[in-house]
């Protein structure tokens, strides 16, 4: 059709529009549309009709006039004549001149289309000439058609028209101006002929819809909906007045097509919107947003005014919609199939295989509870509207809903920050703790506002208590049964599956603590390198604190109790019967129940607390106020477990405490911001209602574990054994062991044989401690050849090992054993030097050598004494007995070991002192070796060298130790320094 003229294109476009307009089929590709287009085209092009004859048309006009006159329809006849005359003389959009063919064409078209004009009920609408605005309202028509309105909803309606009722009832329902009434009350129906229509319609039946339209509600949601009748009073027609004004002042003002609704309809749609209905006429959902339809108007408000009110409502509607959608997602209920993109926007929708995310579920449950009550309120209002007993206006409804709307705003805010803004891929643990934190913060925030947000705080508190439930249940399960049940991985602590309980790493590597805040001590940070990287990277998502704030004060206790409990469950406990246990479990209340009860009792018992420093009169007044409020509360709320009640009591308590402070504290109290008081109150509530239960359980669990470890697993005995063998406390036993080695060395025999060493050790230990002989073993280790150059280092190949059974190896770990071993080797080296000197006979030798020997001898003796003093000084036994939990015990043990390590000069920092001592020991060994070889082998130079070496070392040690002792760095080396000093002076 490339050769088509612009004219034809224009015609086709108009034809398409006409088809769309008449058939309602908008899709041009539609088969029906194409058929219609073809049909129209062929009719337009190939027809056998004559061209329009203006005379014929004029004759028809006159004929109709006559007919109307004959029927005594004078007004209609007059209208007809004047209208046609006026039209024929008026300009057309694209045609110049009057009474053209186009004019007659149009009149003839209308004549062809006319459908029994004499039967129609027509009243000419007054038109405003020239610049005057077109009146949207056909006042006269409404006046005349007012008959079918009773005084019911519009008592202002003035006189009715003269039209007969019969005519009205004969009208077909589909007529544009059928005058179907809105909100027809039963009284209206009684006056109406339609009252006899039986309510037996079926959905889908063509007549049913018409019946509904006529008897229930005007279909105001369809295009070109019939108008409803309403009062003519100025107040009811503000829109028209305003439109008129606009039309008069603004020449370019074009009145738009408007959808007229009544205020009742607006109220009803508002109620529906707030109750979560998704399809509306006035409010439209578009991409998850609620927007107000542009052209909706009510007659008594300007469209701007109505719009601003409706937009205000739409904001709440959207909040409700989003919350509702979240609820649907989490519950898995979806009223309509969601597109996949929006379906899991909050991660709420889960595959069936995934475990439920209980924190969100609990939150949704709390939201749902709120919405149930909110919807009840909405239903009540709707019922009142239906009853029609009293005037219900939009502003009155909004006023009534105001507290609820404020609460919805709060809920939506919490939802947005706590749920919606969390990135999609965030792990559950961060989501859960974030949500709880947001709720917690919101409570404190709103609480700080004081009385103004009392409702909000009550709501948030109830929300918080519900949402925190899964967390407390997880904690409960863990600290009471030692079982961390958290399938959705939402708890801040998670179990590493690959570490079994009866493994020595259990205590350290089993749990990963997520979202550690900066205020938590490093010792509480349990995540080891491997598990820490597996998911606990809280800092990357958001910088803010993601740790669950409310658990922070008791987190350590929870971790301790949980781990202890799990450990205890896996230990064979002899002292408790299973029957007894199950009996106790049955009686036990869950942590959550205990928490709620405590909140309840705490808030109720506030009135009994003694009022310190308050005069009797004030006290009486206070108790009066309290009692009054309490009684009021009790009357209002029957259910004593209601958290709302609890928070109200909290508020009550708060009021009283303020009261109290104001009277007792003077001016300074008044200056205090309410925030400090209220925040403190919320935290105090937690402190007194939640933390004690956890604390109690912590003490119980850890106490049990300590008891079990000490009694059943003989922890203290193992600690003693470590001291016996590694610190040579079992002197006789170890003497037997090491002298056998030293003898071998002196006899120049090879002693570095594993079998020999082990046999010696077993023999020595077996005599006095047969139970330990199987645990102790000795190994040989290859050491650095560079360190082998001195004879004293030869002993360093030895590694003593004590097999510590589980679970004691949690305390005495392999790391501890390494430290023990270092001390053991040092002691062994001193013992060796001492032994070497002891076996020499000095009877024939010079004084110098004797002195040397004496001084050298003193050193090992002194050093040997040190570990013991460290041990006794620290009172480790007592501390171990007092330790509350396993961590504390481990810490005490470590501290003890560190002290010993320190005092044996094994620290890197003081290695030079140790080196000097080792040199002395080495000299002793060389000296002894030479001595054994025979006096003849001695050269005077070598003796001199040894002496000077010894002197140097001696000097160095004396200087260093003296300085150190003066500084107070080595208090335990004071005696050594003194004796060395004495030895030095003798030289």
């Amino acid at each position, binding site marked *: 059709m490339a050769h088509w003229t612009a004219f034809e294109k224009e015609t086709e476009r*108009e034809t398409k529009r*006409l088809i769309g307009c008449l058939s309602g089929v908008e899709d041009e590709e539609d088969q029906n549309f194409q058929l219609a287009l073809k049909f129209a085209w062929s009719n337009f092009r190939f027809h056998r009709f004559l*061209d329009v004859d203006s005379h014929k048309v004029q004759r028809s006009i006159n004929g109709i006039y006559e007919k109307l006159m004959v029927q005594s329809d004078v007004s209609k006849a007059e209208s*007809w004549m004047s209208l046609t005359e006026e039209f024929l003389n*008026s300009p*057309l959009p694209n045609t110049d001149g009057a009474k053209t063919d186009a004019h007659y064409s149009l009149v003839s*078209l209308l004549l062809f289309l006319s459908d029994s004009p004499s*039967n129609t009920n*027509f009243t000419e609408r007054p038109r405003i000439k020239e610049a005057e605005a077109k009146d949207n309202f056909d006042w006269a028509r409404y006046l005349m058609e007012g008959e079918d309105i009773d005084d019911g909803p519009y008592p202002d309606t003035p006189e009715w028209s003269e039209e007969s009722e019969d005519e009205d009832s004969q009208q077909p329902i589909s007529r*544009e101006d059928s005058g179907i009434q809105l909100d027809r009350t039963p009284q209206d129906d009684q006056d109406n002929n339609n009252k006899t229509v039986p309510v037996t319609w079926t959905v889908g039946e063509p007549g049913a819809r018409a019946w509904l339209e006529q008897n229930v509600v005007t279909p105001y949601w369809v295009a070109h909906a019939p108008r409803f009748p309403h009062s003519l009073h100025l107040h009811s027609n503000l829109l028209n007045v305003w439109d008129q004004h606009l039309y008069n002042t603004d020449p370019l003002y074009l009145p738009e097509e408007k959808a007229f609704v009544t205020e009742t309809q607006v109220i009803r749609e508002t109620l529906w919107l707030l109750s979560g209905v998704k399809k509306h006429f006035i409010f439209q959902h578009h991409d998850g947003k609620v927007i107000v339809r542009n052209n909706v108007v009510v007659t008594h408000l300007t469209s701007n005014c109505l719009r601003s009110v409706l937009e205000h409502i739409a904001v709440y509607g959207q909040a409700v919609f989003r919350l509702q959608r979240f609820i649907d997602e989490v519950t898995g209920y979806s009223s309509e199939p969601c597109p996949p993109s929006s379906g899991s926007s909050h991660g709420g929708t889960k595959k069936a295989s995934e475990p439920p995310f209980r924190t969100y579920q609990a939150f949704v449950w709390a939201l749902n509870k709120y919405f149930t009550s909110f919807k009840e309120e909405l239903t009540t209002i709707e019922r009142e509207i239906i009853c029609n007993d009293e005037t219900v206006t939009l502003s009155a409804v909004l006023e009534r809903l105001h507290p609820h709307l404020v609460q919805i705003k709060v809920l939506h805010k919490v939802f947005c920050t706590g749920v919606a803004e969390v990135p999609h891929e965030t792990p559950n643990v961060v989501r859960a703790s974030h949500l709880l934190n947001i709720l917690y913060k919101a409570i404190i925030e709103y609480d700080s506002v004081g009385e103004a947000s009392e409702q909000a705080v009550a709501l948030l508190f109830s929300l918080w208590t519900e949402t925190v439930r899964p967390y407390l249940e997880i904690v409960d399960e863990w600290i009471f049964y030692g079982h961390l049940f958290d399938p959705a991985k939402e708890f801040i602590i998670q179990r590493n599956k690959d570490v079994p309980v009866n493994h020595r790493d259990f205590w350290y590597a089993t749990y990963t603590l997520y979202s550690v805040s900066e205020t938590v001590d490093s010792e509480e940070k349990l995540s080891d390198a491997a598990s820490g990287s597996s998911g606990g990277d809280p800092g990357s998502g958001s910088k803010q604190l993601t740790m669950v704030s409310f658990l922070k004060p008791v987190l350590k206790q929870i971790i301790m109790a949980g781990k202890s409990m799990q450990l205890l469950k896996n230990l064979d406990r002899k002292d408790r019967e299973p029957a007894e246990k199950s009996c106790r479990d049955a009686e036990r209340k869950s942590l959550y129940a205990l928490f709620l009860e405590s909140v309840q009792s705490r808030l109720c018992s506030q009135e009994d607390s003694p009022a310190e420093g308050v005069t009797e009169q004030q006290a009486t007044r206070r108790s009066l106020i309290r009692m009054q409020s309490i009684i009021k509360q009790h009357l209002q709320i029957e259910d004593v477990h209601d958290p709302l009640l609890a928070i109200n009591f909290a508020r009550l308590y708060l009021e009283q405490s303020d009261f109290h402070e104001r009277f007792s504290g003077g001016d300074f109290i008044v200056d205090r911001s309410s925030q400090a008081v209220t925040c403190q109150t919320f935290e105090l509530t937690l402190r007194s209602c939640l933390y004690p239960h956890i604390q109690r359980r912590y003490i119980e669990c850890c106490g049990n574990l300590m008891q079990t470890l000490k009694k059943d697993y003989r922890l203290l005995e193992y600690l003693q054994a470590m001291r016996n063998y590694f610190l040579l406390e079992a002197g006789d036993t170890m003497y037997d062991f090491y002298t056998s080695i030293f003898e071998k060395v002196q006899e120049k025999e090879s002693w570095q044989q594993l079998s020999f060493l082990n046999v010696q050790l077993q023999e020595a230990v077996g005599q006095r401690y047969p139970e330990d002989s199987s645990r102790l073993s000795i190994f040989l280790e290859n050491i650095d050849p560079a360190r082998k150059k001195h004879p004293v280092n030869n002993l360093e190949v030895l590694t003593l090992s004590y097999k510590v059974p589980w679970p004691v190896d949690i305390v005495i770990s392999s790391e501890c054993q390494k430290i023990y071993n270092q001390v053991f080797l040092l002691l062994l080296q001193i013992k060796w030097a001492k032994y070497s000197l002891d076996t020499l006979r000095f009877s024939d030798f010079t004084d110098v050598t004797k002195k040397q020997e004496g001084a050298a001898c003193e050193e090992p003796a002194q050093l040997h004494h040190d570990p013991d003093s460290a041990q006794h000084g620290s009172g480790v036994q007592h501390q171990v007995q007092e330790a509350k939990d396993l961590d504390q015990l481990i810490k005490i043990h470590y501290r003890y070991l560190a002290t010993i390590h320190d005092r044996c000069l094994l620290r890197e920092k003081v290695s030079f002192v140790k080196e000097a001592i080792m040199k002395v020991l080495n000299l002793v060994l060389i000296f002894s070796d030479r001595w054994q070889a025979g006096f003849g082998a001695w050269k005077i130079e070598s003796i001199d060298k040894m002496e000077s070496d010894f002197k140097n070392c001696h000097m160095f040690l004396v200087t260093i130790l003296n300085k150190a002792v003066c500084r107070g760095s080595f208090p335990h080396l004071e005696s050594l320094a003194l004796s060395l000093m004495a030895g030095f002076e003798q030289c």
Partner: protein
Amino acid sequence: MASAANANLNAVRETMDVLLEISRLLNTGLDMESLSICVRLCEQGINPEALSAVIKELRKASETLKASENSTN
């Protein structure tokens, strides 16, 4: 210019109002939109009788279509 165009616009608006009144009086069932389409078509020289025939047919057809849709639903 603007005022002349505006006056013309007003005049046309008024004509359309008059025509709508006539249409209502004759009970043609046309609304403002379809009426304005008809005006344009007539001005383009489409035969009014043919146009009325098309309109009547289209109305009939769409009613049948709606009825059949309702019954299938």
